[in-house]
């Protein structure tokens, strides 16, 4: 496939334009945005195409003007130690207890009905934070978004330090307030209907920070 088509830019685009297009797409299709999503595999495939296209273009351009410009590695490989791995390692991560390993596997294979049956069979006394997270996950897969939010919230209440549960909950909280998926450029036009709570403020700041970084600036120094 034509790498320029994949990135949606013209072949005579400047290096900066290519990089900007690449960044926007990588942000959009980043595996974190599709964690728990029934379309996660497709998004991963798309991300791979985008990475390959960017690598191809930068290599081509480097070869043709070997003296000028520095070779930029793609987003995915740069960040492989942190976020990009998340989508792949999810399921056998250290956070998962042995009890729920088979349920996670079923969810990964999109066998949602079986996963839900198994999960509902867990007696009420054994329902840990992870149980609520996985239940939320199954509901989210089915498109039962309101209840998914409730279960993710409950999982976070039971285990507030867990990153996986936090991510799932915050993503939904952000989308409920904004009507936009996480990972989009917002350009500062964030309109909101209701008041903001601490979580919203946090999300908005992170988002504003992402936007600033995208434009080359920075709002929050540490991230």
């Amino acid at each position, binding site marked *: 496939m034509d790498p320029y088509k994949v990135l949606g830019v013209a072949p005579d685009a400047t290096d900066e334009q290519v990089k900007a297009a690449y960044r926007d797409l990588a942000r959009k299709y980043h595996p974190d945005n599709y964690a728990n999503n029934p*379309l996660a595999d497709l998004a991963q495939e798309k991300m791979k195409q985008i990475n390959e296209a960017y690598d191809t273009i930068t290599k081509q351009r480097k070869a043709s003007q070997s003296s000028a410009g520095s070779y930029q590695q793609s987003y995915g490989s740069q960040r492989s130690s942190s976020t990009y791995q998340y989508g792949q390692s999810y399921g056998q991560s250290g956070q998962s207890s042995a009890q729920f390993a088979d349920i996670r596997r079923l969810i990964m294979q999109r066998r949602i009905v079986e996963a839900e049956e198994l999960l509902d069979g867990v007696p009420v006394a054994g329902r840990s934070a992870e149980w609520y997270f996985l239940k939320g996950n199954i509901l989210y897969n089915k498109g039962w*978004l309101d209840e998914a939010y409730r279960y993710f919230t409950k999982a976070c209440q039971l285990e507030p330090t867990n990153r996986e549960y936090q991510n799932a909950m915050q993503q939904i909280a952000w989308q409920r307030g*904004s009507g936009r998926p996480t990972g989009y450029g917002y350009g500062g036009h964030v309109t909101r209907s209701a008041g903001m709570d601490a979580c919203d403020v946090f999300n908005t700041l992170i988002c504003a920070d992402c936007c600033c970084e995208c434009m080359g600036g920075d709002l929050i120094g540490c991230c």
Partner: protein
Amino acid sequence: MFGYIKPCAPELKVKEQEAYRAVYCGLCKELGRSYGQLSRMTLSYDFAFLSVLAMGVRGDAVEFRQERCMVHPLKKRNICQSCGSLELSAAMAIILLYHKLQDNIADGDAAEKAACLLALPAAKAAYDKAAAKLPALAKLTEEQMASQAALEKERCSSVDRAAEPTAKILEALLGSLSEDETQQLVLKRIGYLLGRCIYLMDALDDLEEDIKKDNYNPFRYCEAQEGESPQEQAVSSLYLTIAELIRAYDLLEVQYFEGILSNVFELGLKQSVDHIKEKRMNTK
């Protein structure tokens, strides 16, 4: 359906606006040709959108021609010619119309009942013809409408469950647009969420009236998130659904009409929710 699914018009390019309008006119003519002139009254934005989506996904050979029509007799306009996507949208519009009429006869006030009873024989004839074209979808719609009636009767308190019948119908409808397994997965997710979105938009639109008349509305009975009014809860639910729709749409492969489709998903849906919200706030 109710005409909530439409583009944000000022953001359309002129050529997109023209193509969209031509599809809208084409669907109107298709309805008249296949199901009688009266059926053209059922024309709505939702099915014009469905036609555009079907054409865009399937890559139908779409043909536009300059024609006159009786609604606008003075000037010739570009009109999309009959094709599989228009046939599908028209048939589905008729199937849903028939169920809507039956629903009104069961629940509506006296005037509504009388009007619907009057229209029923013609609608039934059209329905039979449409159901013969889409037997599987007609059967599924009937089943899902029955579950809808049952859950409304028991005053279901789960918004997710209340939205499921409409969601399932659109899931099957959009799933039928592609043979490709991966694209089908994406289309089904979009269909499910779109059906959910339409149902919830209608629920938000009717919320006040339903409370006044003591009719069923999922947001009346659901367990509210902390500190949210039923209306805020409805808007949040819808925003979340729209965000998830955009995420699924980002993975859809489209051959035509990408500009129109992106506009609807990324701008139009949210605009419809905001319009309903403002309209309801002003009448308070």
